[in-house]
């Protein structure tokens, strides 16, 4: 039993930290916000340091409910990192609006615990608990800016649609339990290995649909643009990064570990979602005028490419999904950090795409960073965003899905259109009114780091990162 508690050490650290920080927030008030943020980042770092599965094989705890393997460890590192960046990005943003509330880092910590559980779930019940813990914190975060009606609307919308998705997921879980007689992934896999019945097939469809909502894959993506637009920008940055990784890790684990023997059955569902996401995410983004909505469609588009890797299944496929999500998180957070700096003369946030016009004249370095993120998201070499695309398509080709790779890569050209449209605005057009100068060294540093990572220098990280993702992927097989 003691062993079990060691395996959930990161979750324990984060829970304790979250509870303590909440007390501090309650007693010291909102002034303590920045301090709490740094403490929360610290606790994430400590939790990441003690991750089981990082240096050892990890193991399964609580009678197979929870698994801490290298797959979970890898996903958690990305999740914790993204959560930390989302907290730091928020600090000065909320600070200037005078409504920074000390609960913000606490909520993100709770969400991080939930996301960690999603990545570590080995049982449908753990899966559901983790998912809900993450989601409940996210609903509150979406409506965090209480003075803003859009924010409240986003929170409500997210909650209602999220509840619907949870319902669909739970229905699928209950069916799966009914037909296989177990909620544990291993047991389900064993049952599916003896042949897939109609009922099990329907159950899988419902489970996948519920999870597709969380990764915002088409056709369960409708909430994404609205929530992304309404939520405060740092929260949007958070939504677009860490929870996406967690949901993708969860989806991958469910698909491979519990439904592995039925790969042929779910593959067509994943392929449909992948292609629909890349096409719709590309086409719908073209007409967007709000940069946050545009990035929402961009995230839908990118999830589609990651799903191509999942459709390939196998070690190469799973590794490519992890690789894709890692690089995607850096690119997306980088783009959102730039958006956070889009401020008008009296410091109000600007969200129109058109306001980026001529940024290269007014803020050359910021413009360069944004251009790097855009070309990278479009997957144009020599930027690092090319590599994850290469890997997912390579996985598809290795899995004899060459046609899928060909179609998906052709749809990437649609996406390229709106990414280069942003570059056109930044570099070709006459300058719009300049953004207000910002003094945010933390944000600037983070932009610099992410820009360097997705620049050609990132290729040097290719080898180690691929080794790590392969090692993580091995854990599922």
């Amino acid at each position, binding site marked *: 039993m003691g062993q079990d508690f060691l395996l959930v050490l990161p979750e324990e650290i984060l829970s304790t930290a979250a509870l303590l920080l909440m007390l501090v927030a309650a007693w010291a008030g909102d002034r303590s916000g920045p301090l709490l943020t740094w403490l929360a980042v610290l606790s994430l770092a400590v939790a990441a340091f003690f991750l089981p599965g990082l240096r050892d094989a990890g193991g399964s705890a609580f009678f197979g409910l929870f698994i801490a393997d290298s797959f979970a460890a890898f996903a958690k590192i990305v999740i914790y990192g993204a959560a930390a960046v989302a907290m730091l990005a928020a600090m000065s943003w909320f600070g200037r609006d005078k409504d920074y509330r000390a609960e913000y880092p606490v909520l993100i910590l709770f969400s991080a615990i939930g996301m960690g559980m999603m990545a570590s779930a080995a049982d449908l019940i753990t899966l559901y608990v983790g998912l809900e813990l993450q989601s409940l914190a996210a609903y509150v975060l979406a409506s965090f800016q209480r003075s803003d009606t859009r924010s409240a609307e986003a929170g409500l919308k997210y909650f209602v649609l999220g509840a619907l998705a949870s319902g669909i997921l739970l229905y699928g879980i209950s069916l799966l339990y009914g037909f296989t007689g177990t909620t544990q992934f291993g047991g389900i896999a064993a049952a599916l290995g003896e042949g897939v019945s109609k009922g099990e097939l329907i159950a899988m469809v419902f489970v996948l649909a519920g999870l597709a909502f969380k990764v915002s894959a088409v056709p369960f993506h409708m909430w994404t643009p609205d929530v992304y637009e309404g939520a405060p920008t740092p929260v949007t940055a958070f939504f677009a990064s860490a929870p996406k990784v967690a949901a993708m890790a969860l989806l991958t684990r469910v698909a491979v570990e519990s439904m592995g023997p039925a790969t042929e059955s779910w593959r067509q569902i994943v392929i449909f979602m992948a292609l629909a996401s890349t096409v719709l995410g590309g086409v719908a983004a073209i007409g967007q005028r709000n940069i946050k909505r545009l990035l929402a469609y961009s995230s839908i588009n990118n999830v589609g490419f990651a799903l191509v890797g999942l459709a390939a299944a196998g070690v190469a496929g799973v590794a490519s999904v992890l690789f894709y999500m890692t690089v995607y998180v850096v690119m997306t957070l980088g783009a959102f950090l730039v958006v956070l700096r889009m401020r008008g003369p009296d410091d109000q946030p600007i969200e129109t795409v058109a306001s980026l016009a001529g940024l290269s004249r007014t803020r050359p370095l910021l413009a360069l960073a944004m251009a790097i993120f855009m070309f990278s998201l479009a997957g144009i070499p020599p930027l690092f965003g090319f590599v994850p695309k290469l890997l997912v398509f390579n996985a598809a080709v290795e899995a004899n899905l060459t046609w899928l790779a*060909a179609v998906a890569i052709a749809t990437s*050209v649609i996406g390229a259109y709106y990414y280069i449209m942003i570059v*056109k605005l930044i570099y070709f057009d006459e300058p719009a009114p300049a953004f207000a100068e910002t003094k945010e060294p933390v944000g600037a540093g983070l932009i610099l780091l992410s820009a360097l990572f997705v620049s050609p220098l990132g290729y040097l990280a290719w080898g180690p990162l691929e080794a790590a993702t392969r090692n993580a992927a091995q854990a599922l097989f």
Partner: protein
Amino acid sequence: MSLQAFPILSAILALPLLGALACLLSGASGARWIALATTLATLLLCIGLWAAYKVGGPQWQFTEYHAIFGRFAWALGIDGIALMLIVLTAFLMPICIAASWTSIESRVPEFMACFLAMETLMLGVFCAQDLFLFYIFFEAGLIPMYLIIGIWGGKDRIYAAYKFFLYTLLGSVLMLVAMLWMVNFAGGDTYIPHLMETAFPREAQTWLWLAFLASFAVKMPMWPVHTWLPDAHVQAPTAGSVILAGVLLKMGGYGFVRFSLPMFPDASAQLIWVIFALSMVAVVYTSLVALVQQDMKKLIAYSSVAHMAFVTIGLFAFNRQGIEGGLIVMLSHGLVSGALFLCVGVVYDRLHSRDIDRYGGLANNMPRYALLFMVFTMASVGLPGTSGFVGEFLALVGAYAINSWVAAVATTGIILGAAYMLWLYWRIAFGTARTAEAASLPDLSLRELAILAPIAAAVLWMGVYPESFIAPMRADVDHLLTRIEGAAPPGDAQPTAGTATPAAEAHR
């Protein structure tokens, strides 16, 4: 350290990149000088490369191999074909920089940085010996070119930049899937010389060949996917047009020689009719289109499409004359079309119009300009003694050996080429000036003379003594021929030996 051990190719690639960074950090006039110095230094290195290249030596020289990336290696190495294209690139670059000396006034450091980055990427395409490294260089060139057209281009630059970017991207992504399949088939081997020896299954070859065609046909460009080229050329600044016509288009031809032919010889033979049909249409149709253009740059752009069709016809002739001819046309066209765009740029800088109707009689007030323009016009037409003749003649001879219809139709292209080029020259240089401004244009400045004269010299050199350029490539054409001769389709010319009559009999 011997020259072979010095990583000269890496140095050639690194130099412009460093120059680009230095340009970004300096002011307008500093950036101009830095760019000029960097490109000249690169040219010197490339001349050294040519001098050190051993004709008749190993197929791949100056090789470097460092497996520093996850799935592919920093593998460089050149053969004679790549060497010639590298020299062409390095030769055109300082000329481009000098041509933009005064015509680019806004955002000079960025412009020079884009150009130098472009140089690294273009040279990288010809140096790369790793499949993915090649792809990265090949595709990365889109970014600086997109910026060059979009920022410093003409009125419709944004449309042209989008069209250029998306067309080329769509073509090359399909090639990427084909590359992934090939690497998979070869068991993870990405080394191009190995892949050139790999026997890919016949039925797969067709698909792979088509995927590569999608990329190279757009780049080349072949009819009917050439429509991005006139737009891009017309809108791009002069130096951009020169690089586009001089080097970027050559990547398509290089791709055919490096990938399509040696890697998929069976598919190349089987689908040869696709190439011939598209090329024949291109030669006749785009020549006719060029004939009616009012915009000088557009006219030259369409003539490029026609000339590149000679390249494809020659390369796919499956014989020595054709392949060598195609390669020489590539080099010659790189010089000639670049020079023609520079000639247009010279008068455009003075009058800010590319409309043919606004010029005329330039031979009266710009005699030196008229002379040099004449040289390039003749080279474009293919006058013996100029580079254009050598390449096109060889390509046609090669084509005749395999298909006389193709040769016949392609030859009409030469006649049409003479028509549109001579007519263009007549309307611009001869007669009397149609506008008062045209009559008062000053002749070439020293800078412009220094830009055009070296190209004219190179054009005449290649026309009079092409052996200098063919010699390094000969062994590589041999390698290519041994690789593809098994698949070569039979020619339609069936020479039958006549019955010999002894001379004495004839006089009886």
